[in-house]
């Protein structure tokens, strides 16, 4: 936050767009601003109302060079925009350098207005700069795909330190019942407009639900994998990171590691000897090495040998001994030979036929300490890898020292 932590002392904050950049359609500018505000309102009790006349708390404008404050813009590049912390007069206002080329999408010959506006409006609400690389409030512009953009955890922590969490914090629904598509935005979260024209603004919101508690007995996971000796548990846009080097569980967002993959995964597995983790989402998969997403991805899962009738993978796990990877789809599983990069003959087979006690679909599978751990709902089933026999049943979050 800024020195003395200035913040709005109310939850209803108004904004007004004073003028537009000729680089973009007016409707695209309005959408970018509305989506940027919605990022912040989705994690706080704040509500934003658009004004068309008069003084708003946050006055938004485009200007070049000297523009009436003590921070003149500097032409193309360099400074892109600036904004003032909450307060009277110029406080809360956001200025964008008109000498930049503003775009709706992320390109290499312009700056994505949504990304820059989301950052500046963070200042307008009281956030200072973050030194966390990848955070929205990091002061340097970083081009990234903003489809399904999720607010990084550092920014959520910052804004909630000023305003607290949203009034209603719905728990994440379980995987079995909830599709992973972005949830429809409620009227309480969307920026509202007070307009003589009453023109609705089109938005494609990306809601950021609250992270479930570690020890929630109903906690379920979308996917789990090892990565360089650690275990990563995925749920929605969140990651729980269990490291052998630290006793505490670290909480992160997927976007802080792999920004283009922020929307979450269906399945994941690691081939440790290749230092490669493979993530699945719907009909596509990505390979990453540490923070780096390997070039050429995403690829369709049919490249692995799946028939077109398979639309998504429920879970995946790699057996380091046999060098085989098992893919779980519904009540069946497939075996993939990592050496030949091909599906093995005789598959798919029923999971229950080969893994005693696993008579249902699986959300995620983890390979650790000579065991497979099959996750189904809030339970996990420990299975001996050699004889494929069920050893015991535990709660899914038993890894979190609950």
């Amino acid at each position: 936050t800024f020195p003395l932590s200035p913040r709005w002392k109310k939850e209803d904050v108004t904004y007004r767009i004073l003028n537009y950049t000729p680089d973009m359609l007016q409707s695209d500018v309005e959408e970018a601003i509305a989506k940027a505000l919605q990022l912040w309102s989705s994690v706080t009790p704040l509500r934003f109302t658009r004004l068309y006349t008069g003084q708003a708390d946050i006055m938004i404008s485009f200007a070049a060079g000297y523009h009436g404050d003590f921070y003149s813009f500097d032409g193309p590049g360099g400074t892109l925009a600036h904004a003032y912390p909450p307060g009277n007069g110029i406080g809360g206002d956001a200025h964008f350098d008109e000498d930049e080329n503003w775009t709706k999408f992320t390109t290499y010959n312009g700056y994505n207005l949504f990304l820059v506006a989301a950052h500046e409006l963070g200042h307008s609400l009281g956030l200072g700069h973050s030194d966390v690389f990848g955070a929205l409030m990091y002061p340097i512009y970083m081009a990234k795909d903003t489809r399904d953009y999720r607010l990084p955890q550092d920014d959520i922590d910052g804004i909630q330190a000023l305003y607290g969490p949203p009034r209603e914090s719905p728990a994440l629904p379980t995987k079995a019942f909830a599709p992973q598509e972005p949830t429809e935005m409620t009227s309480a979260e969307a920026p509202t407009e007070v307009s003589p024209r009453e023109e609705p603004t089109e938005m494609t919101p990306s809601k950021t639900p609250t992270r479930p508690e570690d020890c929630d007995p109903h906690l379920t996971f979308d996917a789990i994998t090892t990565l360089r000796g650690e275990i990563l548990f995925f749920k929605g846009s969140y990651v729980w990171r269990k490291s052998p080097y630290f006793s505490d569980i670290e909480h992160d967002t997927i976007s802080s590691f792999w920004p283009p993959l922020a929307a979450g995964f269906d399945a994941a597995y690691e081939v440790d000897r290749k230092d490669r983790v493979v993530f699945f989402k719907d009909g596509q998969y990505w390979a990453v090495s540490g923070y780096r997403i390997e070039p050429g991805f995403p690829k369709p899962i049919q490249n692995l040998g799946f028939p077109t009738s398979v639309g998504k993978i429920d879970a995946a796990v790699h057996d380091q001994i046999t060098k085989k990877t098992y893919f779980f789809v519904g009540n069946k599983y497939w075996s993939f030979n990592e050496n030949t990069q091909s599906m093995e003959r005789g598959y798919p087979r029923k999971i229950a036929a080969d893994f005693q006690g696993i008579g249902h679909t699986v959300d995620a599978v983890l390979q650790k300490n000579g065991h497979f751990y099959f996750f189904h709902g809030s339970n996990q089933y420990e299975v001996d890898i050699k004889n494929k026999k069920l050893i015991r049943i535990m709660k899914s979050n038993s890894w979190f020292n609950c």
Partner: protein
Amino acid sequence: FPVVSEKEKEDMQLAKKYLQSFYDFKEEKNSLFKTKNLANKIREMQSFFGLEVTGELNPETLDIMKQPRCGIPDVRSYS
């Protein structure tokens, strides 16, 4: 001392302007501690961005300074 090249002069000007804008660097023309003050500000900036803290205007530091960025100072308080 070797003659300072035009490029180095430009880089130094850029760095000073950057540090004035974002790290509250004030050039004291008559101060004996001019260089030390600049190095301290470079250190502050390098620390913020997770660079190796050397106090010297190395290529990594200059690269960050040349990136497009937000115009809000990283350290200066508002009044």
